[in-house]
Every structure is written in C-alpha cells, then in structure tokens.
C-alpha cells in the first residue's frame, strides 16, 4: 500500500548502484578520450601503476585524470547546489547560476585574481564572500512571501546576474596584462589547468558539504510542503535554511573559484533525476552528486574532443544544453 516510502534502503542502494556505474563509465570515457588515445587495458595498467607506455601514462595521470576528477567534483557540486536551492525556495527553476549566486562568487574571485591572491584560500574566500553577498541581496529583494512566486524570484535573480555581469565587465576592463586572458578563460568555465592538488583541495572542501546536505535531506522533504508545515512537524526551519544556504554557497563558490562560471547544470540534473526518481530528497541528494558528476565529465569530454583543434570551455557546452531546457521548463510551468 505504501510502496514509495517503505523501501528507502533498497531504493537508495539501487539508485546508487546504477549511478555509480554511470559515473565509472563516464570517467572511463573521460580517461580514454583524447588525441593520444588510450584503451581499457592501458588505462587500468596506468591507474594501477604498471604502465607499458610511459607517455600515455603521464598524459593519463597528469592531464586527463585531474581533469576528469575536477569535472566530476564540479558537476556534483553544481547539481547539488541547484537541488538545495530548488527545495529551499520551493521553485524548480532556482539554480545558483540563474539566481546570480555564481555571479557573485565570480566577482569575488576576479577581485582575488586581480589582487594576485593565491588560489587557496585567497580567491576561494573572496568567491565565498561574493556569493554570500548576492544571496543576501536576493533575499532582501525577494523577501519572504513573494519568494514563493517563481516570477519575482527569477526576475530578482536575472537582475542580480545582470548587475554581476556589469561588475565583471568593469573588472575585466581594468585588467591589462596576462591576467586578462586568465580571467576571460576562467569565466567561461575552464577545466584546462586542473592539477591533482587542486582536485584534492576542492574535494576536501565540498565532501563535508555533501555529507551535511544529505543529513538534512529529510528536512528538505518537509520544507517542500511549506515552512509552516515543516515547522509544525518539528523542523527548525530557520536553522536548517541558514545552514543549507551557507553550506551550498560555500561549496558552489569553491567550485566557481576553481572552474569559473558553469551554468545550468544545477537545473538540468536535478530536474531529470526528479522526473525519474521522484521528489524524495533522501534519494535525490546522492543521485545529484553522482549524476551531476557523470554529466559534467561527459560535457568535458565533448568540450575537449568536439573542436578539431584546441577546446571549447565546458561552460559553453553545459549552457547550450541547459538554456533551452530552462526555457522549455519555464513554458511548461506557465501552462499549469
């Protein structure tokens, strides 16, 4: 009689199994793709430390692996960020990029780059400050009740994003030297300077965030019924909301400070997974982590292999997939 809730354990296990397999497959494609080639045996040999081909071994370890891992962390973080925003704002169109939170982080990060700060913690702290500031503005503009209305929230987000865009342009116009190229590439969503130490630092930042968010996944279910309902069922709404917003901007700004602006992942992945798996956040949180990671790894493969020479920034790929879907979703919500 209660099939959808009675089997959380097995259901979660099945979802984790399938999506982990998808992620492993995506990572394999990510490791194998590239002009130097690479077969299954070669990759396994290389990863286990018994390479036959030293050059390919170096390419896999120093170029492809960091990049695949960075893309996975980025995708996981942005998808989960989208999911949390959608739950807290009770709006399936909310996403850090669309709401301007990523833009705020970008402003902070660019200021950090211009000041010549170190990547970690300098630029990251600036990015975090920037995302918190935009979050504050967003809440101030679309306060409380009107927050529930898709239009007012999205409109505020668009305005904040436009403002962030202007500030970013201003900052770029102030930069003249080699930093200019760095900023522009980074802005478009750039994974090309991934190193294993970057990956480790980002992983150390976002992994605890994932755990904290999963621990609040049932509270996110209750919040979906409205804050009064959640409170009447024993959720400390203010504490949970503040915790989730801060944790989410922390991990999103960490990802932005390493990888630049990559949009719409937080929209595409949670939406697709919600369609397939239903709205239970206890399933969706781990599913978004794994699904978002797989999606971004594959986007990065496209970014690297589509053009005959050089590469497309991965943010371009994700936006080309995500923006049309966003418009489709917006149209569909209007009709209901």
């Amino acid at each position: 009689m209660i099939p959808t809730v009675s089997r959380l354990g097995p259901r979660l296990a099945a979802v984790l199994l399938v999506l982990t397999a998808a992620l492993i497959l995506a990572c394999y494609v990510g490791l194998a793709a590239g002009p130097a080639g690479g077969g299954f045996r070669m990759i396994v040999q290389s990863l286990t430390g018994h390479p036959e081909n030293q050059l390919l071994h170096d390419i896999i370890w120093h170029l492809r692996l960091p990049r695949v891992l960075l893309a996975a962390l980025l995708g996981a973080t942005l998808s989960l960020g989208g999911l949390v925003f959608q739950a807290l704002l009770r709006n399936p169109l909310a996403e850090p990029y669309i709401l301007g939170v990523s833009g705020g982080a970008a402003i902070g990060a660019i200021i950090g780059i211009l000041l010549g700060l170190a990547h970690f913690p300098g630029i990251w702290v600036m990015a975090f400050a920037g995302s918190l500031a935009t979050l504050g503005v967003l809440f101030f503009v679309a306060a409380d009740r009107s927050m529930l209305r898709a239009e007012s929230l999205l409109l505020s987000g668009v305005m904040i994003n436009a403002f962030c865009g202007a500030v970013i342009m201003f900052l770029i116009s102030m930069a003249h030297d080699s930093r200019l190229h760095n900023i522009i590439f980074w802005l478009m969503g750039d994974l090309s300077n991934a190193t294993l130490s970057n990956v480790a630092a980002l992983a150390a930042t976002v992994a605890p965030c994932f755990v904290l968010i999963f621990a609040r996944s049932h509270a996110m279910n209750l919040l979906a019924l409205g804050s009064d309902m959640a409170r009447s069922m024993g959720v400390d709404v203010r504490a949970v909301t503040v915790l989730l917003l801060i944790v989410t901007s922390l991990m999103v700004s960490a990802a932005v400070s390493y990888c630049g602006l990559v949009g719409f992942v937080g929209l595409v992945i949670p939406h697709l997974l919600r369609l397939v798996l239903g709205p239970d956040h206890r399933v969706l949180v781990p599913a978004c982590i794994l699904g978002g990671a797989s999606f971004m790894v594959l986007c990065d493969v496209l970014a690297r292999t589509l053009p005959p020479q050089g590469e497309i920034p991965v943010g371009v790929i994700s936006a080309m997939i995500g923006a049309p879907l966003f418009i489709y979703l917006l149209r569909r919500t209007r009709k209901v």
Partner: protein
Amino acid sequence: MAPPPATTPAITAEGIGHAYADGRKVLDRLSIEVPAGRFFIIIGPNGSGKTTLLKLMARLLTLQEGRIAIMGRAVSRYGARRLARAIAYVPQSVPTTFAFTVAQVVMMGRAPHLGMLGIEGAADLEIGREAMAMAGVAHLADRRLDRLSGGERQRVSIARAICQQPRIMLLDEPTATLDPAHQVRVMDLMERLGREQGLTVVMVSHDLNLAAMYADQVLLLNQGRTAGLGPPSEVLDCARLETVYGCPLLVDQSPLGNYPRVHLVPGRHLKP
C-alpha cells in the same frame, strides 16, 4: 459520555495580543482555556483573528504579548520536535511544488518521531496506513498530491496530521473544501479521536452548524476579542451572532437534538 475532566488544560492562553507590522491589532488581550480531550471550535467573521490564534498556538507565529501554555508548559520552552509530537497543524492549503505522492506526504507526519533521515520502521508504516484509512485516502496512496482535488488534498493533510500522533490537533477550516459527506466524515473522525484517544481538537470553522453539532466549546471571536465562549447552546445566540457578523440570522433548534441551528436569511426575505 463526556470525557473525564483532565487536571491540566491542553492549551491555556493568557492575555495574548498580536499586531501586524503596520500596527493593526489582530488579537487583543485574549484569554482562553482549552480543556484536554475536548472539541473546541473557533468561529468569527473574516479577519477576526481565528487563524492568527491557531498559528500562535502552533508556534508558527512568535508570541508578541501574553502567554501560551501547552499541557501546562510554556510554548516557548518546547523544543521543535517535542512541540511537533504534542501538536499537529492542518493549514488551509498545502503547496504542491514537488510531486510527492499521498503516501509520502502522510509518512512525513512521522518526522518528529524519527531520526534525522526520517527512515520509517514497520510500526510507522502501519500508523501511516491506519491514518490514510481513517481520513479516507488509502485508495489514493500512490497518487501524486498535485493531481488531486482540493478536497482530497485536505483529507491527505488530515491523514498526515493523524500520522503525527499528536495530543492536540489544530485545524484551519478543514471542511471548507469538502463535500457534505466528507465534512461529516472528518467531523465524526475528530470527535471519535477525541473520545477514543483523548485527542484535543481545536478547529477554525465558518460553518456555524457544524460548530453547533460537534463542539464541546465554541469561541466566538470578533475583532481579536472574545465575543462568546462556552457550549454552542450559549454562544450561538441569535442576537449575539447578528451583532458580531453584522447580518440578520435566524436561529432555531435542530430537529436532530438539542443544538441550535443557524439559518442565513436571504435579502429578499427582509422587510424593505
């Protein structure tokens, strides 16, 4: 037939006041006592403060003035989960942004009894099944909440509140969207839960006749103050109701028993 008098009232409110941000008073030094295990119905014109009173009792609004105690303990001294085990709240409507099924929503009622991830045991599922059966939504268990009618959603909301197993249930116009059969079913259910499990029911309603037939006590609110408090036969007095509602009414006795019956009077029946 009446439940035994309990020593501690379920809810005590003393001198509570509440004002909107613009300074307009919604509740003005209101004092009431809801005895445990009774059916307590709040009536009054639009804007008389009924929902505000209910939300203050559920601590969904912060108390600005006065004191509210739940089962003898100040409402502010409850932890969030402990309060949720004592009180369940059924709002006028529930948002349906995400496509939860009826069973999922009902089982959320177990949240204050479960761990952080809300993983239900067999006993919890049994409680959920029973709650759905009581509210008459068992056949809807796998349907999505956003695809149900307003009345069906209301019953799901009631099933969720029952699943929460509270000592006190606060309901905000639960019968407003229901057809007559389901109105009676919901009212009967609340009466039965009171009789069998000692549940205290506090309900806001615009239906004076349901209040007359089911309430142990009626609170008539007018502009944030008590305009009447007591058994329906006392409070539902024609002159008093006409003054508060500002319209002509006719009150006689119900053929079903010793309850007042309130009739609305169409304008064409009035002398010019």
